[in-house]
């Protein structure tokens, strides 16, 4: 469905110069700096997948989305979306894709929400029947009944974002790009949006690419994850593979009946000790919580035990911070 091959995008950024003299100098002979926003990126996305496209700020996520939507022309490499080159076939490509940017709006600000849908319906040349059907379905799934007649500028962020998603899907595109769609949205609206994305994917087999900083969202809906850092894809794997590879650390929390004691363990590491509690970090390949507890001297009463496991959120936070080897 979507193919990127050795995709790169460079931006030439003019350096404004420092101070008055520097700015005057740059007025006469501007200096440019080349920034590689996307650097030799390749991936392939099958029809019906939901991809979590992750990376810290400025990693190149949004630039990739703009390359995929055909707004930006690649500096080198190629993109194919539904067998088409998006920049060469902008108008045809537009029918294949729906785009939502969490920090932007494609709705007509001063008009009631419903007007935006009507305009888009005309723009995408939907028949009256298809428009009615799609609108009805989207309104009920995204629960937009109460605010569809309100001017867009009066909507809350959560309401507006549901409107944005409906606007992107009105023409039933097989591909949906979501660029931080839940940013700033409250928990209820957010869950509604995430459930909707899953439903859409299951029922209509829409291919979804979701970029977000909210790793819990990704954990919930994206089976496959791509991580980009400094313009390069550093990881492309399924959630299971990622957990398998990076999520090996577990944390055992033990609460004893009385004060703890000196303890040496053959495997695992005591990371914290507090009153009568002990935290032991261990690698699940090397030992198990059961074995660890078995190593405690007998006669020491244990009041409580709990285990925390790495999840996608903590693993990806580690990758952001320490890279793949951390």
């Amino acid at each position, binding site marked *: 469905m979507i193919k990127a091959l050795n995709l790169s995008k460079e931006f030439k950024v003019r350096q404004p110069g420092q101070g008055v003299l520097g700015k005057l100098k740059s007025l006469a002979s501007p200096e440019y700096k080349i920034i590689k926003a996307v650097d030799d990126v390749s991936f392939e996305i099958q029809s019906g997948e939901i991809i979590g496209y992750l990376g810290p700020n400025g990693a190149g996520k949004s630039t990739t989305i*703009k390359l995929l939507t055909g707004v*930006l*022309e690649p500096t080198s490499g190629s993109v194919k979306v539904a067998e088409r080159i998006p920049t060469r076939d902008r108008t*045809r490509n537009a029918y294949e894709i729906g785009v939502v940017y969490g920090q932007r*709006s494609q709705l007509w600000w001063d008009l009631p929400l419903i007007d935006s849908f009507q305009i888009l319906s*005309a723009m995408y*040349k939907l028949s009256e029947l298809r428009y009615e059907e799609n609108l009805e379905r989207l309104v009920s799934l995204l629960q937009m009944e109460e605010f569809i007649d309100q001017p867009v500028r009066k909507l809350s962020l959560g309401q507006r974002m549901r409107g944005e998603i409906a606007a992107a899907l009105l023409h039933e595109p097989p591909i949906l790009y979501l660029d931080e769609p839940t940013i700033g949205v409250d928990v209820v609206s957010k869950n509604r949006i995430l459930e909707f994305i899953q439903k859409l994917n299951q029922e209509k087999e829409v291919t979804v690419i979701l970029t977000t900083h909210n790793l819990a969202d990704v954990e919930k809906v994206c089976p496959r994850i791509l991580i980009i850092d400094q313009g390069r894809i550093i990881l492309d794997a399924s959630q299971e593979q990622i957990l398998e590879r990076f999520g090996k650390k577990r944390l055992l929390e033990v609460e004893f009946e009385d004060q703890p004691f000196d303890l040496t363990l053959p495997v695992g590491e005591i990371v914290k000790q507090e009153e009568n509690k002990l935290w032991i970090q261990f690698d699940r390949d090397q030992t198990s919580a059961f074995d660890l507890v078995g190593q405690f001297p007998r006669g020491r009463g244990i009041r409580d035990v709990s285990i925390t496991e790495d999840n996608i959120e903590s693993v990806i936070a580690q990758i952001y911070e320490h890279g793949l080897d951390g």
Partner: protein
Amino acid sequence: MVLMARTGLALITASLQEKLVYRFDLIMGLLRALIQIFVFHQLWAVLFTGVDDYAGFTLEQTQTYVVISMSIMPLLDRSFLPQVNERIRSGNIVFDLARPVYYGNLLLYQGLGQFAATLLTTSLPLLVFSFVFFSIAMPDSVFTWITFLASFCMAYYTAFLMDLIASLWGFWIASVWGLFYAKWNLLQILGGMYIPLWFFPSPFKEIVLLLPFRGVAFTPLSILVGGVAPEELPMALGLQIFWIIMLLWFSKFMYARVVKKLAVQGG
């Protein structure tokens, strides 16, 4: 074609409605134009004191020219430059470039909606006002009216294309206000919006008459007040058509360059 018209109509209506939301804006525009009409009407009366005609044109012809010019100017001198530039700066241009409609046409539909709004709320009231309070000489010939309307439609399209080119040029510039005022002033002076071009001194006049700006106001207005002899008509209209073709080609050329070079950063 029918579907195309539907797309256009929906976008035009949307833009019309958006425009009508801002009542204060409309009232201020109306007020400003009224003052201008009054001032220029008086100015020409003073300039014509003691003379019957300048360059073969009477006071009444000239007054008719400027009063109509001031009334329809709000239809012709609108600019998308600040709006387009704002969309580039905010990055919202990413939506416009991923639509199944050519960006130039999106702007044209929006422009036509604004045209309808301005016509209803500003130009028509101004024309009515002028007819009631000033002596205005209107042509009797149906043929003159038809040629005027044809020329006026081309005038609108010429103005639109010039503005589109300026707006596309704005893709490369961080602050567009310099370009905005330059375009506006060129249009008003070289287009003959304030002063009919026949009063311009030679050889300046001959040069200006070859430029595309005259097609925005001077050509239809001079047809209306009888400043174009029948044998000059083909040349006047032909020049409008010629410049529309050139501007259309150039705007497409610029658009192709713009989308290639476009850099939308952040968010």
